[in-house]
């Protein structure tokens, strides 16, 4: 038993170091985002603490030799792309997972060809798509060639999430609905979908996050209008500045607050449901 206890301590410390390793660059990034500007570079030491780079990201800083990040348009493109990808891949993921609830011949082949979409490295797929587009004389754009590849990438994730949800789904409620005279389509809308909705939500979250940050697939297929990751990649070639770090801190805070809002909404809705259930509250509807 002593050995197990010391092992536990060892692993605990190991895990703590691991977390430090994960967050190290993060912390450094946070510190350096407060570097003095516009002369201060993305390295130590801190010349003077300032919020200059935050102002720079927001576009409030006076013009200087550091070009502002192309946030406005690129960000909107990225968000639009992520939203469209989320919708399409979640719908397809739900449909495919629904099909997998019945046994059918060739299911193994279908399963692995869907999974292939998340396995094939993005550069390769981007390259193949670019070649294909060239061959057929199709213009490469973030909303066309890049979009379809984003879906190829996120659709398997949505599919796997929904497959796991359906594995725990009790089909007898659907049978109950059918036997009450409700058509299969309406049964899906009124029974199946509301029950699997939390799963659909996490599939959507997955797809959105992956698509928003996706970049190797976009590189060759995105055309001339850049998305946010492409804009950041563009700064690789030239010098990097702490404005990127400030932007990183801001986006992290943004997604963090989104998650907090989501969690609050979720707990409010469950509390309301519980209140309704115990009859303490009058029927709101």
């Amino acid at each position, binding site marked *: 038993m002593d050995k197990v206890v010391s092992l536990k301590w060892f692993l605990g410390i190991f895990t703590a170091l691991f977390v430090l390793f994960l967050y190290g660059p993060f912390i450094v990034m946070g510190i350096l985002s407060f570097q003095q500007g516009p002369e201060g570079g993305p390295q130590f030491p801190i010349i003077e603490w300032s919020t200059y780079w935050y102002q720079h990201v927001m576009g409030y800083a006076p013009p200087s030799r550091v070009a502002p990040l192309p946030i406005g348009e690129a960000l909107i493109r990225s968000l639009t792309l992520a939203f469209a990808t989320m919708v399409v891949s979640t719908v397809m993921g739900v449909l495919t997972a629904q099909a997998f609830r019945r046994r059918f011949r060739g299911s193994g082949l279908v399963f692995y060809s869907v999974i292939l979409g998340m396995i094939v*490295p993005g550069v390769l797929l981007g390259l193949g798509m670019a070649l294909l587009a060239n061959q057929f004389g199709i213009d490469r754009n973030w909303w066309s060639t890049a979009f379809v590849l984003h879906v190829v990438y996120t659709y398997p994730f949505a599919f796997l999430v929904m497959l796991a949800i359906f594995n725990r789904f009790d089909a007898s409620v659907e049978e109950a609905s059918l036997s009450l005279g409700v058509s299969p389509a309406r049964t899906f809308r009124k029974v199946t979908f509301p029950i699997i909705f939390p799963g659909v939500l996490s599939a959507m979250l997955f797809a959105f996050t992956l698509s928003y940050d996706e970049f190797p697939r976009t590189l060759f297929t995105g055309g001339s209008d850049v998305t946010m990751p492409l804009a950041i990649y563009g700064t690789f070639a030239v010098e990097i500045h702490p404005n990127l770090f400030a932007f990183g801190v801001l986006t992290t805070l943004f997604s963090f607050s989104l998650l907090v809002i989501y969690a609050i909404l979720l707990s409010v809705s469950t509390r309301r449901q519980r209140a309704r259930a115990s009859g303490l509250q009058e029927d709101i509807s």
Partner: protein
Amino acid sequence: MRSNKGTWLLLAPGMIWILLFLVAPLIMMVYVSFWTQTTFSIKPDLTTQSWVNFFSSDTYFGALLRTIKIWLTVLIVTLLIGYPVALYIGQFIKNKTLQTALLVTCVIPFWTSFLIRVLAWRPMLGKEGAINIILQKIGIIDAPIEVLLFTELSVIIGMVQIYVVFMVGPIAFMIGRIDESLIESARDLGASASTIFRRIILPLSLPGVIVGSIFVTVMVLGEFATASALSGRKVNLLGNIIITQVGSLKWAFAAVAGVVLTIVMAAFVAVMLRIVNLRNQI
């Protein structure tokens, strides 16, 4: 009851999408790799010239070997670091909330753009970077270590940090799923901690290791951004080769590199899938 036709109707959108936008591009890549490449243009006359060039060039064949070396190093290091962490989260943390909290902690960094996370390693590893400053402050070293940044080492460190979570997640999931009573009854039967680990935890966590390895492999093999950000363009992986070739419109050459990369990756994934049936793990 829904008919078989209904099943195929449900599958149709996904399958058509996969055929048009996944299978077709891959086939196109193979096809283009046999086209004739001249300095300024590319013609659809079939030839193996690009393939011959690829394997006879030190630059490109060297890039392939370097890619494989870095991939295997990252794979092994992520496994060595990731497994103990996964073991701790999955086996030693009994509180479900704490377990989830730890896993979420591992995922939070993903909310920052991948590229910014890569760049954040620069002020960390540089000559005047955080690591050198701290090591000098506590007196372990006198002069800053210079090999930390813009070397293969920095590329490996960067990749390990970014991809290790994909190893931790699946393994922790599999270990966490092990029935507690199984371990308890083994303990009651007098099995030592090391026996329990070897005979129960290790085999049951193997699917997690496989899935994690597949994740890390496909991501590392397709990498180019970490290498270009942290090696100062000194370390060229196959991914970087593809980027530069496309940049100079040498499509056939890029396609050859792409096909080679696909073959390496497909071979590894196929071997892994022989060991574990992915479908049964969901």
